[in-house]
């Protein structure tokens, strides 16, 4: 066996592309040096990855299913963030209360409001903006960028131009301390919320008839119609879910940052596009894998080589595309 083939076989044995985040973690440890810093950065990276996963999964399915390029996706992220911030500010008494129940209700209200807004806005966006330009990429790009600009202006008009603080429910404040390692509660919560969404999406995609239709539609939507199904009805359901998850991701991100400005959506969108491309369009597993890699790499590089932080994810994307032009986990078995 030649040396590269040997390495490839070993790579497959340890889990193939699924093991990449773990490989990245192991490589980072000696470079970072301190174990407690490594744990902190790893938890931050996983939490950030899961929040990006929430934002990216819908976009990936929307593109996979209908070839629709939605550059307006970041509007859902921004609206989710600002709506959550407003709800939390409005429920300030509950947010700061000494009662876990009230804390939890405030959190639930903020995430719920953002998510419900995402569902409704997703419906409106699909019917009014996307539907007239199915299968016309140039017009999709133009019209969704147009919608994005309008959304940003609405945010500016409603919430003003200066950054606004996001109160965090007391129950998510603080850290778990284990030895000399401190782990922020919020990060753990973000991680498990993302994991729960991933498991739910995977179950729906793999165990239900609508999931079967979505997976089939990602491969060949014409054939799904020739079997007697309305792909457009399927698509609007997927679009609304994707928008709702983006808004939920935006809401979580707002709480993570603590201070948000109108630029948030656009900043996250760059990462979301990178995740969707390296993960493989139309694949939920791919989005998760891509998001974890981007989250971890971003945090590690910001610590080890701060000057490279911005470029690192672009470099990651180029490297992965050179290696696997269809992304890590493309939806269609190739």
């Amino acid at each position, binding site marked *: 066996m030649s040396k590269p083939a040997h390495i490839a076989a070993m790579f497959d044995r340890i889990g193939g592309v699924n093991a990449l985040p773990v490989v990245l973690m192991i490589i980072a440890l000696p470079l970072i040096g301190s174990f407690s810093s490594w744990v902190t950065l790893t938890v931050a990276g996983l939490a950030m990855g899961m929040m990006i996963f929430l934002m990216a999964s819908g976009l990936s399915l929307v593109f996979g299913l209908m070839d629709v390029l939605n550059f307006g996706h970041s509007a859902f992220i921004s609206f989710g963030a600002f709506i959550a911030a407003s709800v939390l500010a409005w429920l300030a008494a509950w947010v700061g209360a000494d009662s876990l129940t009230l804390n939890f209700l405030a959190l639930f209200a903020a995430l719920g409001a953002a998510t419900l807004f995402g569902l409704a806005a997703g419906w409106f966006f699909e019917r009014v903006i996307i539907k007239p330009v199915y299968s016309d990429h140039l017009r999709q790009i133009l019209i969704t960028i147009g919608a994005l600009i309008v959304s940003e202006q609405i945010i500016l008009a409603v919430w003003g131009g200066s950054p606004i603080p996001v109160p965090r429910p007391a129950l998510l404040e603080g850290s778990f301390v284990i030895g000399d390692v401190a782990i922020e509660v919020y990060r753990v919560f973000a991680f498990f919320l993302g994991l729960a969404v991933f498991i739910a999406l995977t179950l729906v995609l793999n165990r239900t008839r609508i999931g079967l239709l979505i*997976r*089939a539609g990602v*491969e060949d939507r014409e054939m799904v119609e020739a079997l007697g199904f309305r792909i457009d009805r399927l698509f609007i359901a997927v679009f609304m879910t994707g928008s709702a998850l983006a808004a939920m991701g935006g809401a979580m991100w707002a709480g993570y940052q603590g201070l948000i400005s109108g630029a948030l959506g656009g900043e996250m969108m760059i990462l979301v596009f990178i995740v969707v491309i390296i993960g493989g369009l139309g694949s939920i597993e791919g989005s998760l894998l891509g998001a974890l890699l981007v989250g971890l790499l971003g945090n590690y590089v910001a610590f080890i080589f701060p000057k490279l932080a911005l470029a690192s994810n672009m470099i990651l994307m180029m490297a992965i595309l050179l290696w696997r032009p269809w992304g890590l986990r493309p939806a269609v078995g190739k």
Partner: protein
Amino acid sequence: MSDYVLRLDDVHTDIGDYQVLHGISFNVPQGGVHVLLGRNGAGKTTTLRTIMGLWRARSGAVVFKHHDITAMHTSDIARLGIAYVPENMGIFGGLTVQENMRLATATGGFDDGRLGHIFELFPAMEKFWDKPAWSLSGGQKQMLAISRAIIEKRELILIDEPTKGLAPSIIRAMIAAFEEISRDTTILLVEQNFLFASSLGRNVCVIDDGRIAHSGRMEELVADKDLQTRLLSLSLDAHQ
């Protein structure tokens, strides 16, 4: 008209700016295999896609039993009882054999009798039941595409060049399967392989350049060597 399952009446179809079908008319009676022949690029696939509503007829009518389906949505046409096996087979590679077939059922459940029958026709389907469809060979994919079309009772099956790239032994198995299927389902078959087509077909239409060049009973075409040379040399020339 009710003795015809399908009737095309002066169908014109454009693809983009190209006029591809210039008035196709034919009738498909109930039962048996009916064949569309024609050289490459003649418009056979376009005819099937127009029936399925995947291309829209600019003028003319497509009538299925008593329904005018010319302007219907593809999914509604399928639900009336028409199955389509496209030239590329339309297999979902990322789905298992089972999932591919399940999608073609109305409720998501299988009729054990029909399924057992399919396993008899195509044993490979049972063998690869839980394997992803991309791992099947070309012939097995074609069998899956046909199995999917017959997993529930249909009135009419449109099949586009099922023998393309298949070994002679598999083609013989296909002939047996089609004879069996066509006992209770009408089949409209697009085919280049004259041997295959002539051993199955009851009626035949030859399409050339978007028009019907000939139509009649298959045995007439098989018996009439002159006609055969004239029509089939067309296709031989096109293959040179």
